[in-house]
């Protein structure tokens, strides 16, 4: 592990894309083993401009365009990391990381284990993920379930610009491979970048304190959850919002402590619900909070459909209303008495 930067000079307000750019620049400057490459990352600065200006500042040896070959990008990053470099590579869009699936799951995730720890692969794969930008098919996937179910990978997703800056720096300093999911619809939201990281690399954060229900999410859903908590407050429900930040490893402690206190939880993500990451969270909470739970754990997710065309995506993405509905279903009113079967009657008759 390289020394994780602990303080930054005053960075002021930045968009998430700007914060990521700044994090890359600061790491490139701090450690000459860091390289940035991918498709269109040099002259163009990436299709989302996250790498804007880096090639000019650091030169084509350290920031360069690769041929169009996602498996090739990840496969060569593995070889480079074996030789002591710390590559940060970009997948242009979520669904275009799939050609690299084999390199990521069969090699990047496993080589440390296969070689009894002799090979370490400090590789960061940046993947802009999720919808909400009116993108046509293949541009809006949420692929986290694939990555989190692969032991050996670390998976993080910032929900705010400040976290984007610090999590990316922590990811680059990490000696394990990191899948870095960037919520592309939040790229342009501006925020003050804090002078130091808000938490440890793999710690979840309580973004808003509350007593009645815990809303759990990450990445693009963080602002949506905060909005939902505002709306719930108007209905007299005090919602706590947890931003996971790190999907794997998972911070059970923070999440369990909250849910044991509130007794209710709703897990939210854009990806499809079936066998999605939310199912894992719900299972973990059931195992660890059963006696404190007042209701089954709710999930609000994308439907079990391929990502829809842009004109229909609003129905698919978890919205404030859908999350509020899920909160309402959490059996808040436990004074309701279920109609009982009159004595002497056969309930099966």
């Amino acid at each position, binding site marked *: 592990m390289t020394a994780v930067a602990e303080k930054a000079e005053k960075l002021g307000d930045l968009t998430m894309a700007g914060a990521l750019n700044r994090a890359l620049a600061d790491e490139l400057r701090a450690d000459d083993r860091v390289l940035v490459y991918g498709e269109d990352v040099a002259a163009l600065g990436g299709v989302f401009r996250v790498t804007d200006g880096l090639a000019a500042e650091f030169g084509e040896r350290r920031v360069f365009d690769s*041929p169009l070959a996602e498996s090739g990008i990840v*496969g060569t990053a593995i070889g480079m990391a074996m030789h002591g*470099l710390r590559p940060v590579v970009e997948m242009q869009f979520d669904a275009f990381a799939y050609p690299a699936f084999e390199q990521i799951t069969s*090699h990047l995730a496993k080589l*440390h284990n296969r070689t009894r720890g002799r090979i370490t692969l400090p590789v960061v794969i940046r993947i802009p993920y999720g919808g909400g930008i009116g993108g046509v098919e293949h541009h809006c996937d949420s692929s986290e379930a694939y990555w989190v179910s692969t032991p050996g990978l670390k998976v993080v997703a910032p929900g705010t610009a400040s976290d984007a800056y610090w999590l990316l720096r922590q990811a680059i300093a990490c000696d394990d491979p990191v899948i870095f999911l960037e919520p592309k619809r939040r790229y342009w939201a501006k925020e003050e970048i804090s002078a130091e990281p808000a938490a440890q690399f793999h710690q979840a954060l309580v973004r808003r304190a509350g007593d009645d229900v815990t809303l759990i999410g990450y990445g693009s859903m963080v602002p949506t959850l905060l909005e939902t908590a505002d709306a719930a407050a108007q209905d007299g429900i005090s919602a706590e919002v947890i931003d996971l930040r790190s999907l794997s490893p998972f911070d059970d402690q923070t999440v369990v402590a909250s849910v044991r206190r509130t007794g209710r939880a709703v897990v939210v993500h854009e990806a499809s619900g079936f066998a999605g990451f939310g199912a894992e969270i719900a299972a973990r909470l059931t195992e660890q909070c059963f006696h404190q739970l007042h209701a089954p754990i709710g999930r609000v997710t994308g439907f079990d459909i391929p990502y829809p065309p842009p004109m229909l995506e609003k129905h698919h993405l978890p919205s404030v209303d859908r999350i509020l509905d899920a909160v309402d279903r959490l059996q808040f009113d436990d004074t309701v008495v279920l109609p009982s079967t009159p004595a002497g009657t056969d309930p099966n008759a």
Partner: protein
Amino acid sequence: MTVVTPSAGFLPTTAPRCLIDADGHATSADPARLPDREVLLELFRLMSVGRRFDTQATALTKQGRLAVYPSARGQEACQVGVVTAMAQRDWLFPTYRDSMALVSRGINPVEVLTLLRGDWHCGYDPYLHRTGPQCTPLATNTLHAVGLAHAARLAGEDTVAVVLLGDGATSEGDTHEALNIAAVWQAPVVFLVQNNGYAISVPLAKQTRAETLAHKGIGYGMPGVLIDGNDAAMVHVAVTEAIERGRRGEGPTLIEALTYRIEAHTNADDASRYRDDAEVTSWLARDPLSRLQTYLQDQGLLDEAGIAAIADEGETRAARLRAAMNADPVTDPAELFANIYTEPTAALRSQAAELAEELAAEAS
């Protein structure tokens, strides 16, 4: 920096390049000089010892000591020629088929066979031997070689990466990406395709319409070299030339070595389903060992005593390997959790403790 060769120079020769033919005669057709006598003797020694290793590994499989063994019998010239051409500082990226090359590179055979015995995935230290783990997902190691070679070049080293792959693996997408990227980056990589005629049961004709696999080089902008892969001298020379090209900063080379897999794909395979004995017999006549032995004997470089001494060495090593492999390997369940990440996560620590507790309870 780069010497621009007319691209026609990237085409392979019509006939496979060869220095010592199947009858053990030096050919004069190729402009390359034969390697020095010490190299030729070393090639012969390593091939003999390597073949003995291979038959020993096959026997160990029959005895249940290995889970599976993909034999390289018949491919000795490739397995050994590549290793003798490499410097210690060069990196080798082998596949499951290349145990003999690893043993020739000086890796402890027990560590080489760890993967196939099943007590761990990779038994040797890749950094100690500058050798990647044996790669099973076809062609994926080509990209690791390109990345490593590029990184070495960025670091100002003259290290070359050599990657081994089979004819079948050339159809995989990663081979294309690796050849292309290596050429674009001018990475010092040698792609050595051991064309042994089959990918399990599928013959080369079902893999490609290209005239030869070596022809593919020119499309990527690199030389394609077609060689007799049963001529150890030729493999040594062709790989040496390609490594020197890489060291000079002239980029990658694709070599297709024509050879043959004498055994079935693995001990689990039934080769009679897809090839006939006559074909195997015809290749036995082109045996890589006997041709070099004939040549060395004709030149007075090797006599019966020398051959016997080498055979003895093979026997001694095989006996040592047998003894080592007949001892049950010690496995440690704690290792299951040790190296998933550089630091175990809380979840892994608790799973490790759970398993340890269970095992302790069983033991008591």
